[in-house]
C-alpha cells in the first residue's frame, strides 16, 4: 500500500457549537485519486478546506508527509504551497487568461522563463492556448473552468484539491472536461482529493471513494466495494441501490443463503447466520426482466420474482421500471428492450437476478 501524503486525524469542526465534521481518520495516498461523495450539506467541502489547510479544524490534526501541520505557524504557507485547489466557481482574477494561469507560479516567485513555459504548456494542454490574451471575465463557464484547472496544474502541486469543479457546467461541457481531467490526472499521476455529489464523476475518476453523510465518513473503499457492498442503508441509497428490502435469513447451504422477504424467497451469496435480520440490496442494473408468458430454457440465475409493472420512467437511454413483486423492485432496461417487451403498466413480468447480485446488510 502506498504511503499517505496527507492524513486527517480526529478532525472535528463545530459551527456555532454544532458539529459539521467529525472524521476520526482519513488519508490520501500518494498518486491516488480519492473521491469524496455525499449529498449536499454532508461536510465534504468543509473536509476539503480543512485538509487543504484553508480552514483550521476545531480540533484534530492534519499531517502532510507524516508531519503535523501547525495552524498559524510559519510552515503553514510553505505546506499550503504544495497544494492547488479548483472550486466549483472558476474564481479567476480580473486579468487575462495567461496572467491567471501564471498566478500560482508568480505567488511562488518562480523564474520568468519557467512561468512562461509552464503557462504555455498548460494553456495548450487544457485547449485554451488561443484564449491566452483574452480577459478572463469574457470566458464561458467551460473555458473559465479550463483556465482554473490550468492555473492549478501549472503549479505542479503535490496534492490537487477539486471541490465539485463541474457542478455548474452544462452536461456536454462537463462530460468533455471530465474526460480531459481524467487523462491529465493519469498522465501526471497527480495525487488528488476530489469532492463531488455526482456518483458517476466519482466512479469515473476515483481510485478510492469515501462516502460522507452528516459530517461523517460512512465508508471508504475502491469503487466496486463501495458501490457493490455498501455498509449501510444510507450509503446504499446514495450509491444508487434502489431496491432495499427488509428480510430474514431462513436457511444456509454451502454458502448460499435463503432470505425471506415479504413472503418471497431470495437466494443470496454472503455471510449471515440463520435467523439474522438483514436488508436485501439489489442494484437496478443487475436485474433482468422478461414477460411472464415468455418461455425460457434453463438459466444460471437463482432468483425469479413474479410481479407486475407498476410504472416506467425514461432515464437517458434507459427506462427505470418499477415492478410490484409483493415488495417493489426497481430495474433498468434499455429503451429497445422496453419496446420489444411491450412493457406497460400492469404487464405481468418475471424479474431475474443472480444470487451474487444480492448484497446483504445486517440490521
Amino acid at each position, binding site marked *: 500500500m502506498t504511503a499517505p501524503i496527507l492524513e486527517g486525524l480526529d478532525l472535528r469542526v463545530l459551527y456555532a457549537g454544532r458539529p459539521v465534521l467529525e472524521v476520526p481518520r482519513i488519508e490520501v495516498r500518494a498518486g491516488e485519486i480519492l473521491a469524496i461523495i455525499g449529498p449536499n450539506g454532508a461536510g465534504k467541502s468543509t473536509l476539503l*478546506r480543512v485538509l*487543504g489547510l*484553508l480552514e483550521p479544524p476545531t480540533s484534530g490534526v492534519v499531517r502532510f508527509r507524516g508531519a503535523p501541520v501547525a495552524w498559524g505557524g510559519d510552515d503553514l*504557507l510553505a505546506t*499550503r*504551497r504544495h*497544494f*492547488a*485547489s479548483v*472550486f466549483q*466557481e472558476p*474564481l479567476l*482574477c*480580473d486579468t487575462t487568461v495567461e496572467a491567471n494561469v501564471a*498566478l*500560482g507560479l508568480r*505567488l*511562488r516567485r518562480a523564474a520568468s522563463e519557467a512561468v512562461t513555459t509552464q503557462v504555455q504548456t498548460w494553456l495548450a494542454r487544457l485547449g485554451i492556448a488561443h484564449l491566452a490574451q483574452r*480577459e478572463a471575465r*469574457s470566458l464561458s463557464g467551460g473555458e473559465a473552468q479550463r483556465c482554473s484547472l490550468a*492555473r*492549478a496544474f501549472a*503549479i505542479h502541486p503535490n496534492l490537487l*484539491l477539486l471541490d465539485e469543479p463541474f457542478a455548474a457546467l452544462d452536461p456536454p461541457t462537463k462530460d468533455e472536461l471530465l474526460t480531459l481531467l481524467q487523462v491529465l490526472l493519469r498522465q501526471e499521476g497527480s495525487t488528488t482529493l476530489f469532492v463531488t455529489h455526482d456518483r458517476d464523476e466519482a466512479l469515473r475518476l476515483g481510485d478510492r471513494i469515501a462516502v460522507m453523510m452528516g459530517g461523517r465518513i460512512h465508508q471508504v473503499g475502491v469503487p466496486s466495494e463501495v458501490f457493490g457492498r455498501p455498509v449501510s442503508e444510507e450509503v446504499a441509497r446514495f450509491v444508487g441501490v434502489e431496491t432495499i428490502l427488509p428480510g430474514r435469513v431462513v436457511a444456509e447451504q454451502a454458502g448460499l443463503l435463503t432470505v425471506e422477504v415479504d413472503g418471497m424467497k431470495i437466494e443470496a451469496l454472503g455471510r449471515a447466520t440463520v435467523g439474522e435480520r438483514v436488508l436485501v440490496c439489489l442494484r437496478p442494473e443487475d436485474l433482468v426482466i422478461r414477460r411472464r408468458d415468455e418461455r425460457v430454457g434453463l438459466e444460471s440465475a437463482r432468483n425469479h420474482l413474479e410481479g407486475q409493472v407498476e410504472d416506467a420512467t425514461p432515464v437517458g437511454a434507459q427506462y427505470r421500471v418499477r415492478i410490484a413483486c409483493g415488495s417493489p423492485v426497481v430495474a433498468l432496461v434499455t429503451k429497445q428492450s422496453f419496446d420489444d417487451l411491450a412493457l406497460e403498466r400492469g404487464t405481468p413480468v418475471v424479474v431475474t437476478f443472480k444470487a451474487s447480485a444480492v448484497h446483504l446488510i445486517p440490521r
Partner: protein
Amino acid sequence: MELIWRGMLEAIRLMATGDPEVLQITWLSLQLSGGATLLSLLAGIPAGMAFALTRFPGRGVCLALVNTGMGLPPVVVGLFVSIFLWRSGPLGFLQLLYTPAAIVIAQFIIAAPIVTGLTIAAMQQLNPRLRLQLLALGASRWQLLWLLMREARLPLLAAVMAGFGGVISEVGASMMVGGNLQGQTRVLTTATVLETGKGNFDHAIALSVILLLLAFSVNYLLTWIQQRGRTP
C-alpha cells in the same frame, strides 16, 4: 446669463494670460486637496480593508461611525479642527492654525471616512470565495491583500475620486482653519467666496469655472486609468 458669459470670458482671460495669483491659488488647491486625498488613501484603504476582511467585537459600531463620517459637514470639521489648533487648544503648541497644514488636516478628516467607507464597500462586493481561492493558490497574507486590492481597483479608484471631489469642493473647513490668507491659505473655493462677497461676480464665476475644470481634469485622468482596457 450675461453675467455668466462675462465670467466665462474672464476665466478664459485669466487662464490665457497666466494670471499669477490665480495660478498660485489653483496650484495650492491642487497641492492641498491632493495631499489630503493621498493621506486619506494611506489611512482609509488599509482601514477599509481591515473592516471588510476581519471580524471583531464592536465592528458594527465602527462601520456605522465610518458611514456617518462619510457625510461629515465641512464646517463642523473646520470648527473642531480650529478648536484643537487654537493657541489655547490641545494641539495649539503646533502653531498650525491658518497654515496650509491645517487645511490638509481638515480635508484629511473629511476625505478619510469617504475613502474608508468606499473601500469597505469595494472589498465586500468581491466574491468572498476569491479570498479562499487566492490562499489556496499559495498567496501569503500580503500577497492576498495586494491581489484583493487589485481585484477591487475599479471601485477603489471611485473612492479616490469621491475623496478628492469631497475636499477640492469644500469651503467651510478651509475657510475656518486656513483663514483665506492671500498667498498663503487662499484656495479656489475660499477665493470664490471672497470675490462673491466683494460683488466681483465675473471673477467669482471665473474661479469657479477653473475649479470645475481642475476637478474635471483630475477625475478624467482617474476615470481613464479606471476604464482603460475594459470593454462594455
